[in-house]
């Protein structure tokens, strides 16, 4: 896998013009802007300093902010998150990186038993304003344990927000919001599209609020709901469906907890049909919650059962078979047609 050293980006915190950035560069840009603004923000994780992160998402930060604010930690996910809890309750604002979502399991105890609960169990006396960044999802022919999408584990866990950007502009704005949030935020970066495309990203500071979905494409016949890397696949499917005369609206949820139920339900109420798409396994996935929500709130507006296009309830396959696992344009289009033919 290319690490993209050739297109090194050194941050545009002091730049004055909009640049065309990738998602990975937008992460870097958000960290630069925020670390410049607030000296209590520190970045810590494995290989995030000297090496700039295995995806270069923290490139240049070490040189700019030094070893006390960009800390290369021992290889210990539990300690990275546990120490971040300690840093956060004493007034620092840690942005911790877990190198891949498949490696987060040792830290789950700290995330669920402490980070997500501290505010509640101290009745607001101690809080954990921290961000846990991690690349997630498949599609890059990575080795085993490098392709997981277990967002549902964390969406199911009260006390922690879960954010998933799908494009460079939102990545920067959402990450800045996440860093400024007073509660712990899981920030899942879709590694499949880390460097897949560039978009204009304004310099300096701006926010995209947490808990608000975006309408990525307007449509009238069916609502396709997705997040992360799947948004692009859904937009692709929507373009293909347009040629068949089907008008699909695509909702990019952007935040999975808290969920923007209003935007979602307004769209489904308008179109009367919905397809939920995620690459995570199907059973008890976030899609199941969305289907339940639509059934509770918009059943009488539905023209067809809500469809799900998801990963399988299997271990994520290795590189040679992953294309069979990941939802693709054809599967999404077929699901849309089923809702129209019902």
């Amino acid at each position, binding site marked *: 896998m290319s690490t993209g050293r050739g297109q090194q980006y050194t941050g545009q915190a002091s730049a004055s013009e909009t640049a065309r950035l990738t998602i990975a560069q937008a992460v870097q840009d958000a960290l630069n802007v925020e670390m410049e603004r607030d000296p209590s923000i520190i970045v810590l994780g494995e290989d995030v300093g000297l090496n700039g992160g295995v995806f270069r998402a923290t490139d240049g930060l070490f040189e700019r902010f030094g070893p006390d604010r960009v800390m290369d930690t021992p290889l210990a996910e539990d300690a990275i998150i546990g120490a971040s809890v300690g840093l956060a309750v004493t007034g620092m604002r840690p942005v911790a990186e877990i190198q891949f979502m498949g490696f987060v399991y040792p830290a789950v105890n700290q995330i669920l038993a*402490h980070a997500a609960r501290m505010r509640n169990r101290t009745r607001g006396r101690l809080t954990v304003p921290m961000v846990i960044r991690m690349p997630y999802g498949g599609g890059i022919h990575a080795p085993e344990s490098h392709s997981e999408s277990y967002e549902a584990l964390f969406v199911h866990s009260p006390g922690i927000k879960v954010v998933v950007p799908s494009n460079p502009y939102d990545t920067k704005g959402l990450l800045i919001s996440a860093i400024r949030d007073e509660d712990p935020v899981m920030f899942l970066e879709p590694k499949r599209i880390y460097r897949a495309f560039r978009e204009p990203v304004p310099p300096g500071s701006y926010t995209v609020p947490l808990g608000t979905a975006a309408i990525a494409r307007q449509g009238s016949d069916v609502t396709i709901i997705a997040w992360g890397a799947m948004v692009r696949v859904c937009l692709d499917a929507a373009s293909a469906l347009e040629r068949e005369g089907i008008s699909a609206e695509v909702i990019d949820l952007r935040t999975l907890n808290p969920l923007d139920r209003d935007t979602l339900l307004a769209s489904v109420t308008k179109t009367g049909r919905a397809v939920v798409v995620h690459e995570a396994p199907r059973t008890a996935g976030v899609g199941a919650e969305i289907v339940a929500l639509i059934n509770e709130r918009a059943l009488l507006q539905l023209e067809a059962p809500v469809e799900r296009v998801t990963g399988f309830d299997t271990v994520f396959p290795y590189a040679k078979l992953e294309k069979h696992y990941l939802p693709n344009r054809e599967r999404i289009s077929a699901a849309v047609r089923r809702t129209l033919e019902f």
Partner: protein
Amino acid sequence: MPRKPIHSCTVERLEILGPDGALDASLMPDLDEATIVELYRTMVRMRVFDDKAVKLQRQGRMGTWAQLKGQEAVQAGVAHAMIEDDWLIPAFREHGLMFLRGVPGHLIYAYWAGDERGASFPEGVRCLPIAVPVGSQFTHGSGIGLSLKLRGEHAAAVTFGGDGATSEGDFHEALNFAGVFDTNTVFIIQNNQWAISMPRERQTSSPTLAQKADAYGIPGLQVDGNDVFAVYVAATEALERARSGGGPSLIEAVTYRLGDHTTADDASRYRTGEELAHWQEQDPIPRLRRYLEERNLWDDERERTLEEDAAKWVAAEVDAMNAMPPPDPGDIFRYMYASMPPALAGQLAGLTQEVDR
């Protein structure tokens, strides 16, 4: 190519006041008589506080309680070595330390009686709530120690755990992390010999827990945890080192859990009466009392007064707990996030309607 030793490790044990009353005066810390008397009073108050909680539990007025009985010297000695700016990161048996650090006794009781307000400590009390998942607090001590170091505070993070907790991966990751970043942290293991039903020997085949420090490149020391002077000396050394940039340390305080693991446990199922009797002879409270009596600093009259005062204090803490208004069911929701998400507000509205009906 030779094969030769490249590293060896020695472990020190510190004892000052023995169970038989023998004192190593050369190691005795510089404590005046009034302070030593106060340490004794503190240890007795801990025991009374602990006994009261057990009684409340037996009467059905308290949930599960984890007894500290037998471990008073560790807690009194460490508390006396701490300064106001130090942080305490307790496990779940450090009630004595917590009230010495400024957590009101009635809040400690309230927590164990099932009220979250019991972990909402007064402003300025530098103490985390207890950690129930065993060992999960160690890394918080590393993080707080790092935070204190980064901000140049002359303070340390005092992190507690038991012998069983040293088997958790968190212990390794926390000490390793603290060692790498030279954090202002002191890890104190209350080796009370039992992790519920498993003896210390079944947690590790290391002869001591103190020696584990060596693997992380930090100082380790074993102390007689029932000797308040030894604990105080060890904690003072380690804390001053941590506060002044000398890095973290590990202290293994060898003590004994004279009570059950919790009020839900019956230790007679897995340990012998002989063992218990042996450790009762090591009890830190009579040991210090004898020291005081031999120096005419204590007598039965003073003991009676102390017991009466302690009983009054504990009764007042129980009254204060009972005087707390019942918790509002809405509090289940109010502290989940800085601002309540709409879906949660909907669930709260549903509960409120149900409660008001």
